[in-house]
């Protein structure tokens, strides 16, 4: 173990290596801030560039992008209420209200340090206990995934401010939207009108852009509070001041890190769900749950810690078993294989210098995005001072090119426009939009895993239920679902009375 870490350190102590980490982190922060650019796309398109670099340097750069972009989606979520990545949707729920109160810096400091700590915790897990965690990840079958999706749905109640019915409607709309396209098992196409661009459903990032960018532009142009208080922002241009606050969040950070790592190692779940579940847990354990959605620091910290803890988690099954857990790591796998490296035991023995160098580089990446994030945020904060007449067209342009570039298809711009209209309507009716994103993320998983579980039970519904309660992990998740519902109801009741 220790000699491996030493060889890793040796790999790391290379000027070129540090340079590529820095380049990756800077690129990643930019990619994360821009709503149309995803880390998956950036990494996929940069792999040919890293082709000619030595593998450890290429991987370190890709790692920097991955980690930094997962963090920096929160910057645009906080300042503009436009999540830069699906992972920062939960951050926007409290980050933006806090920023609107004139505390942008506080929100950014909280999200930055939370991301950093969550990321580092997950890299420790990757470094020290990866093999047993990877074995655990294999225990998840379709039954567990289906229940996990159900558990995710229980989070909706926590994401809804105001009438709870509206939150459920929003979540159900998301689940329904996710059923557009092929049925995952029969291949039957639904709601597509024979338009091939709809066969695979609506790309998540396209709907994220439509749902947030467009309505935000409209609401920023129609509010009358265009006068901005520059002095207020300047006054607290002191990031260090808010650092002690993060130390008060020890339990929250610990819980969210664990949630993030677990969600990360389960293949196919993803960072946005990690953020949502941690947010929900933080709200359930918080002494002031009523502050959530109105600028609660706990909410920001929970979501950001967890979504960055997911990053290290997803790399665990990837490096130890060669199983990619999300689109980013699937691309990563390609990036590893293109260098002739083979994920699995060989990576930790024959190529241990590269592997440990890469893992250690993730520590640096996670630390490095703190100063780089602050530096970029310092200028990005001034965006709120740009007149809306300039900012709005720029956001619209980014929305258009962003939705185009996901699949290189102009049809996606039109899809984005339709989702934008939906977002505008929801915004007008004061319906929360975060549950819709959650529904979209969970919908495909819920539907396909339910269908697959039924198929695995040879179509017998009773066998299906027997499997649900006899498989150990599935039973645990089932109990968690029941507990979440119970907690949700009691809290909702208390809230309504008080």
């Amino acid at each position, binding site marked *: 173990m220790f000699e491996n870490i030493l060889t890793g350190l040796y790999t790391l102590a290379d000027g070129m290596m540090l340079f590529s980490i820095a380049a990756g982190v800077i690129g990643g922060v930019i990619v994360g801030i821009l709503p149309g650019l995803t880390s998956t796309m950036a990494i996929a398109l940069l792999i040919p560039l890293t082709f000619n670099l030595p593998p450890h340097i290429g991987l370190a750069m890709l790692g920097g992008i991955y980690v930094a972009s997962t963090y920096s989606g929160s910057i645009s979520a906080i300042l503009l209420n436009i999540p830069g990545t699906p992972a920062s949707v939960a951050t926007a729920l409290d980050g933006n209200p806090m920023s609107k109160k004139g505390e942008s810096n506080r929100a950014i400091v909280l999200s930055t340090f939370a991301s950093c700590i969550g990321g580092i915790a997950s890299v420790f897990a990757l470094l020290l206990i990866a093999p047993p965690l990877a074995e655990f990840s294999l225990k998840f079958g379709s039954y567990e995934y289906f229940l996990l999706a159900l558990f995710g749905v229980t989070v909706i109640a926590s994401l809804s401010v105001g009438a709870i019915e509206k939150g459920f409607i929003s979540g159900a709309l998301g689940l329904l939207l996710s059923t557009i396209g092929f049925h995952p098992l029969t291949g039957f196409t639904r709601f597509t009108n024979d338009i091939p661009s709809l066969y*695979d459903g609506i790309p998540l990032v396209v709907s994220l852009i439509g749902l947030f960018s467009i309505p935000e532009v409209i609401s920023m142009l129609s509010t009358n509070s265009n006068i901005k208080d520059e002095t207020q922002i300047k006054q607290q241009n002191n990031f260090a001041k808010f650092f002690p606050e993060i130390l008060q969040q020890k339990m929250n950070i610990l819980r969210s890190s664990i949630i993030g790592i677990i969600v990360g190692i389960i293949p196919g779940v993803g960072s946005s769900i990690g953020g949502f579940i941690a947010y929900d847990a933080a709200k359930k354990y918080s002494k002031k749950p009523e502050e959530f959605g109105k600028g609660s620091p706990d909410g920001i910290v929970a979501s950001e810690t967890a979504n960055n803890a997911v990053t290290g988690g997803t790399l665990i099954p990837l490096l130890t*078993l060669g199983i990619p857990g999300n689109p980013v790591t699937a691309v990563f796998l390609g990036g590893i294989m293109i260098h002739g490296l083979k994920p699995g035991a060989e990576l930790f023995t024959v190529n241990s210098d590269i592997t440990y160098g890469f893992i250690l580089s993730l520590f640096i990446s996670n630390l490095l995005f703190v100063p780089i994030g602050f530096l970029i945020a310092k200028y990005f904060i001034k965006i709120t001072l740009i007149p809306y007449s300039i900012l709005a067209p720029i956001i619209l342009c980014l929305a258009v090119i962003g939705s185009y570039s996901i*699949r290189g298809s102009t049809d996606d711009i039109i899809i984005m426009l339709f989702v934008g209209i939906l977002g505008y309507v929801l915004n007008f009716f004061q319906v929360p939009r975060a549950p819709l994103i959650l529904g979209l993320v969970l919908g495909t998983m819920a539907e396909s895993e339910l269908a697959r579980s039924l198929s695995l039970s040879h179509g017998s519904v009773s066998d299906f239920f027997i499997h649900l309660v006899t498989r150990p992990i599935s039973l645990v998740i089932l109990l968690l679902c029941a507990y979440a519902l119970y907690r949700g109801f009691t809290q909702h009741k208390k809230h309504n009375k008080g």
Partner: protein
Amino acid sequence: MKKSFLSVFLCISVLGTFAIAKDYPAKPVSMIVAYSPGGGTDTAARVVSKYVKPYLKQRLVIKNKPGAGGQIGFTSLSTANNDGYTIGFINIPSIFLVKELRKNVKYNISDFETIANIQLDPVVLAVKADSPFKTFADFLEAAKKRTLNIGGDGPQSNNQLQLLIAQDKIGFKTNFVPYNGSGPSITATLGGQIDASVPSATSASNHVNNGRLRVLAVFADKPYEYLPGVPTISQASGVNVPSIGAALRGIAAPKNISATQKKFLENAFGNMMKDKEFLLYAKKTNLPLQYMNSIEFDTYLKKTQKEIKRYMHLLK
């Protein structure tokens, strides 16, 4: 002013046509890939783009047109300009399956002109390393006693088709459970969620090397070079099973591309397939290469098309 502008314009356009006629390619050639960046097909395309450069004497630019299981990309290749500057990476048999199984597919197989085939990735039958099925015979015996759950990319994929053809020929039945790609079906196999899976050979080989997966048979006419010792399905079962489910990745152009350009491209890719560095790289990364020149590729295409039509009823 206007006049000089016009003459400059004329000059440029004349030079332009001149360049095309004289030395093709005069600018980078773009290659449509019908799958998203980072996927297996895309990665293969990017490797090809790197190694073909010295022979193409221009850059080969990848244009991803993903979606609908390749339909969007194949359609856009079929309608692309046939000036020799747009070619595509096509996947067989996906290109047939999409055409046969869906309504409103705008391309025809005759819209493409074959250039060269690069890869052949057969389907394999894989089980977990500690599975009781040691050989295909064990598997077959169990499959005849109870309904086994077999995972694989799907639905309506080449993997499923291959399994169904084998079942039809050998005479057994299974419960095919579609997964979102070969990768997830392997994950489910490793976790013991299913009895076996039918992934592509490339995605299985790394797990076999790690000692976690065992391949019982390769659905191909000859053994797979990166899985030594694994019998072909015909050897293992004693029945002749056609291997049309194997995935081919090759280069094609929109039809009616000029003969000289076609010849040039064919030579460029043909030479790349003999390039020492490329071969070395392919070996290192377990890329299953299978060169076919334009005519061989075309023959294979026509033969497979006929056979697939014969087995299509199995998928419906």
